[in-house]
């Protein structure tokens, strides 16, 4: 069974009289252990999809099953609980807590987990080391560069060992070389640890790091490009189920 299974996924927003439908009957499967890039024009619903996958927004219609759990069936409280164990999201603008050090930011999600203090500390240190930012553990976000802040954000995302790691334009605000090294980090999290990653990006070069690229258009997956070791790709026609 795929890790993510979306059927007829629809999300509508109301803006006064007008109804906006960023997601409109989207079907999608993502297998565990995959690294998937999500592309599409601005306003095509990429962030909306990611927020649904992250359990911080709810579908208007359709079903969304992640790791065997139907997210639409969960209460607000259950959804929060689910987020704290199963999913993490990395944002374009990092979203670190400004008054907390890098260490404290990474520790934050673990405060929800019943772990011995020692174990919690070990996990925070491991996540900081994994994101190559352990040397800045006692720095405040404002003392860090954008690339460094994003490393802390990634450490915070992986410290809970989530089943699904989401990233919404994680390099969108970074210079070329910082972006490259963040992409290196995400690639290695996928390659070396088998993490399942869904990354929204505008940058084709970033998308190349992924095994598959989904193109969103008019609220659906318009095209899937799968990439194996070589540059062989397959195109799926629109309106059929995308499988990545």
């Amino acid at each position, binding site marked *: 069974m795929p890790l993510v299974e979306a059927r007829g996924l629809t999300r509508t927003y109301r803006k006064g009289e007008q109804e906006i439908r960023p997601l409109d009957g989207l079907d999608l499967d993502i297998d565990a252990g995959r690294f998937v890039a999500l592309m599409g024009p601005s306003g095509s619903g990429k962030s909306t999809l990611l927020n649904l996958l992250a359990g911080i927004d709810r579908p208007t219609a359709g079903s969304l099953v992640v790791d065997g759990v139907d997210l639409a069936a969960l209460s607000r409280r259950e959804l929060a609980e689910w*987020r704290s164990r199963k999913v993490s999201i990395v944002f374009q*603008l990092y979203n670190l807590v400004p008054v907390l050090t890098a260490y404290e930011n990474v520790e934050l*999600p673990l405060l929800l987990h019943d772990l011995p203090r020692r174990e919690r500390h070990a996990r925070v240190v491991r996540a900081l080391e994994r994101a190559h930012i352990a040397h800045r553990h006692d720095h405040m976000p404002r003392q860090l560069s954008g690339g460094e802040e994003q490393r802390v954000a990634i450490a915070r995302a992986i410290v809970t060992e989530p089943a699904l790691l989401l990233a919404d334009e994680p390099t969108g605000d970074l210079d070329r070389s910082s972006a490259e090294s963040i992409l290196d980090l995400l690639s290695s999290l996928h390659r070396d640890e088998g993490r399942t990653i869904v990354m929204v990006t505008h940058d084709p070069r970033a998308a190349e790091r992924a095994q598959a690229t989904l193109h969103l258009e008019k609220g659906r997956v318009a095209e899937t490009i799968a990439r194996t070791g070589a540059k062989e790709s397959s195109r799926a026609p629109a309106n059929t189920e995308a499988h990545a």
Partner: protein
Amino acid sequence: MNLPRALRVLRFPRLQLQRHALRTALALGGIAVAMLLWTIIRSAELGVALATERGASDTKLVVYRQNRYCPFASQLPQHYAESIERIPGVRSVSPVKIVVSNCRASLDVLTFRGVLPEWIDAELLPGVEMLQGSADEWRSRGDAALVGEELAARRRLRAGDTFRSAGVTVVVAGIFSSDDPQDRNSAFVHLPFLQEQAKRGGSGGIVTQFTVTVDDPSKLESVATAIDERFASDSHPTSTAPEKSFVANAAKDVVQLAGFASWVALAALAAVFALVANALALAMQARVRETAVLEVLGFTGSLVAWMTVAEGLALALVGGAIGAVAAWTGLWVLRPAFSAEGAVIEILPSASVLLAGLAASAVIGVAAALVPALRAARLGTAQALRAG
């Protein structure tokens, strides 16, 4: 409810308060000042209550000259004592000459009470504890004074000291503690000595008032009426009242002031509420994004609300404790007391006022945090992060 988790997440509001040190200090300062004011006013109210509210076991009457208020103006013939003693229900009567350093309502007045040695033995000594010196020392010297502990503390007096006030110079023969606010704020001297030294208010044969003790507390009123009737057509008509009513009447201004100050105390609590609510509202407004991040990380709305309430509670409790303890310490060191017309009202440091202040702070802290807490808990996560 997962208690270890609820305690663990308190690290977040704690760090918020610590790292926004200036904002926290300003809020704490405001709360501390308000609770300082509250504690002082409540202590004064307590002092008024102790000095003026009659208890069921009160047995003391004060016989004063009718329509006279300042001790200097109340002049009664000392020989009235013999007539008063014969009135049924009277256990003992003592002529008292009172000399004060200041007749009007003010702080730090020194009150001399000239009394007879028999009254000291029969009425004062059984109810007090000698802290320094002795009553024997007092009896053996004409210019000796037995000083109440509150007065001694205020004037930093010790046994053996000589001091001068209102034109009278005395030697401290002993210092005693007492449950009676009037006694523990007075210096008791020999009546003839005071009549001799302080000519003002009448000298030999003239006293300010009589202190009468009755057999039965329930007869307080009827004995008072009997005394006034006895001298009604005399050249010096009297006005007799229970000691606490007398104090309430003499210190009317202070009692009224304390009544008015109750509103100020209430306003101080309102100020604490406003300060906590304002500090939290500003903090939560500045923290909309951070709160959204918490929710993305899996913090539930109720956990976020709990963290906000804890922040309000911490502000109110720490600020309130600083203010209340500062007021308490100040009262303990300075021992202020109002005097008016020879009656004393103390402002006492009291454990019950201190605890009530802390409890009020805690309740207000939680109450003031409720609205910001519920708002923070209801925040829509995705929306908040998109907006930035």
